[in-house]
């Protein structure tokens, strides 16, 4: 899947240029063609990353005191910062709780929608709707669901005799509430990828398997799931990145509270850098986030590349 998303490029066997001059020219032209992309990449990706790293080694300039080199002091402070650890822990719980659930739900929905059922087009649209909505809007909808007493959830709860509950205001449920929102929003998006991949699997494979006596589950386990592996990898990478990257709902629904229970790493960075204006510490935390994302992406590709069947 990840592969088929990229435009398929035919690679003709590279012809050797006739002479040295030609080689030189071809090389130069190639570099010139790459230049705009390289400049953009350097200016907006590589330079900020390096600058952030450098910032994390300096103190935050305050009033009359300019920034000065402090070595690893910021990192030392970070290790002693309980809120940092809390946000990291929250983020881990959040990622582990939302990613498998969203992916599993996406897969089940895709299999369901892909089957021969009536109103298939409408169902697809229904499942895709959460994806089209901006996270801010989604968060607002759910904010209503979670409202104590008046909210949809409590109203339904009342029918069954349950009392009012402050879902977002309680330490024990706030993070879970955010996780539900995330799963709801992400699953529809991932489903579209699974659906596209499922349509690539020739129906004749299912027919052959049916004649060979394979049951539904056996066919899923031996054929469908392995053939969906590239999609799963693609979706997984996206899900992990999103788990660390999207905090809109935290901003709208809880602002990290109550008592840091929904403090995710990126939201904490935002608070440190833009509410407390401690830019150096913000840079330090950002380096941690970058390191996590890089490690996760690298690990996934190294691990899965061996096990994924690319057609």
């Amino acid at each position, binding site marked *: 899947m990840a592969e088929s998303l990229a435009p398929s490029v035919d690679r003709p066997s590279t012809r050797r240029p006739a002479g040295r001059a030609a080689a030189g020219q071809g090389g130069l032209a190639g570099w010139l063609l790459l230049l705009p992309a390289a400049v953009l990449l350097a200016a907006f990706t590589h330079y900020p990353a390096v600058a952030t790293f450098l910032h994390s080694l300096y103190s935050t300039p305050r009033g009359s005191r300019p920034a000065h080199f402090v070595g690893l002091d910021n990192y030392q402070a970070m290790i002693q910062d309980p809120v940092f650890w809390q946000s990291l822990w929250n983020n881990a719980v959040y990622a582990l709780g939302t990613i498998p659930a969203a992916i599993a739900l996406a897969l089940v929905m895709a299999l369901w929608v892909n089957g021969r059922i009536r109103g298939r087009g409408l169902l697809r649209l229904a499942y895709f709707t959460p994806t089209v909505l901006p996270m801010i809007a989604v968060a607002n909808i759910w904010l209503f669901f979670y409202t104590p007493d008046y909210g949809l959830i409590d109203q339904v709860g009342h029918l069954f005799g349950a009392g009012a509950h402050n879902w977002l205001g309680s330490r024990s449920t706030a993070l879970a509430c955010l996780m539900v929102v995330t799963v709801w929003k992400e699953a529809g998006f991932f489903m579209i990828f699974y659906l596209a991949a499922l349509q690539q699997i*020739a129906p*004749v*494979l299912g*027919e*052959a*398997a*049916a*004649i*060979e*006596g*394979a*049951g539904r589950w*056996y066919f899923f386990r*031996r*054929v469908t799931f*392995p*053939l969906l592996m590239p999609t799963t990898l693609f979706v997984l990478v996206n899900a992990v990145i999103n788990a660390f990257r999207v905090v809109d709902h935290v901003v709208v629904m809880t602002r990290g509270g109550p008592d840091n229970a929904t403090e995710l790493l990126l939201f904490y960075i935002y608070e440190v850098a833009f509410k407390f204006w401690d830019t150096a510490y913000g840079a330090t935390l950002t380096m941690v986030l970058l390191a996590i994302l890089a490690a996760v992406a690298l690990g996934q590709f190294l691990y899965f590349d061996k096990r994924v*069947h690319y*057609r």
Partner: protein
Amino acid sequence: MQAIRLEEVSKQWGEARAVDRVTFEAEPGSLVVLLGPSGCGKSTTLRLIAGLEQVDTGRVLIDGRDVTALPPSQRRLAMVFQSYALFPHLSVAENILFGLTARRVARTERARRLARAAELLGLGGLLERKPGQLSGGQQQRVALGRAIVAEQPLCLMDEPLSNLDAQLRQEMRHEIRALQQSLGMTLLYVTHDQAEAMSMADRVILMNQGRIEQDAAPAELYDRPASLFAARFIGTPPMNLLPLADGPGGAVVRGTAGPPLFAGGGEGLALGLRPETVTLAGAAEEGLATEVLAAEYLGADSIVALRAGEARLSVRLAGRIRPQPGEPLRVTWPGAAAHLFDLSTGRRLDEAAGIRLGAVRRRLA
């Protein structure tokens, strides 16, 4: 007991009848070919037998058992698809054993069957490869292997050779036939290639627009086509069909003055002649006067296109004959080689219908 029996099986898609009251049987251990032009319902018939589609009306019996309501897995058959339907992520061995693993056949038994299939099909060195690393012919063999190891008494094949080149198709044709005979399985084989059908089949079922046109052994299909459609479909070039008209002394080829072919009227009838049964008439012989339209020299013989009255016919003439267009030729044929069809019903009219069909020469002798 018949290996397969279809009773009045029909399948409708919207307005169109893909399969229309099809009834036939296949003897155990025989190779029966479903032959017909594109869209005539061959694949649909096969899929109805496999259980991949549900019949609208009628019954399907396999080994005397009514399987009409059973799912494909319980019909005790194997199938080879035109596209092979190999699982791209599984190795050759896993592909071949897919069904046995699904049916929980014991490991040692699986190994035994795999070894035998690999030996039969010459797949020994390829068992660890993925389908993508095989040639078309090798993929074809893997698909055959999967059908063989199932050890089902009935095997269905839907145009299994159509993706191969002509040379390989020839080889595989023989190989499949030999395999079918040595394993003693009943094989129902779909093709639109009449050469394939004629060379492999014990029996050919010729289909047209969802109906069975003729169900016969290859030789009979060739020698006694039951309808105009069968006459036109079999043979390269196919049988010539010359419309007849009433003449003064009997039926004549439409647009000619004679000679009369048989006593009685010719209106609404057509004379069928295989190209290779027509010969040049000797100087003393009576014959049908024709004009040469074109000649195609093929080495051993030539195919000469002729016009006789309103009819055109192709004849296969031995030797190095190079007639020029416009040249007149008189042709004749043995009486037994002539076929007569009713143009309105499209059916064959036998001598039993009261018409004694003679050759031009014999009649006048």
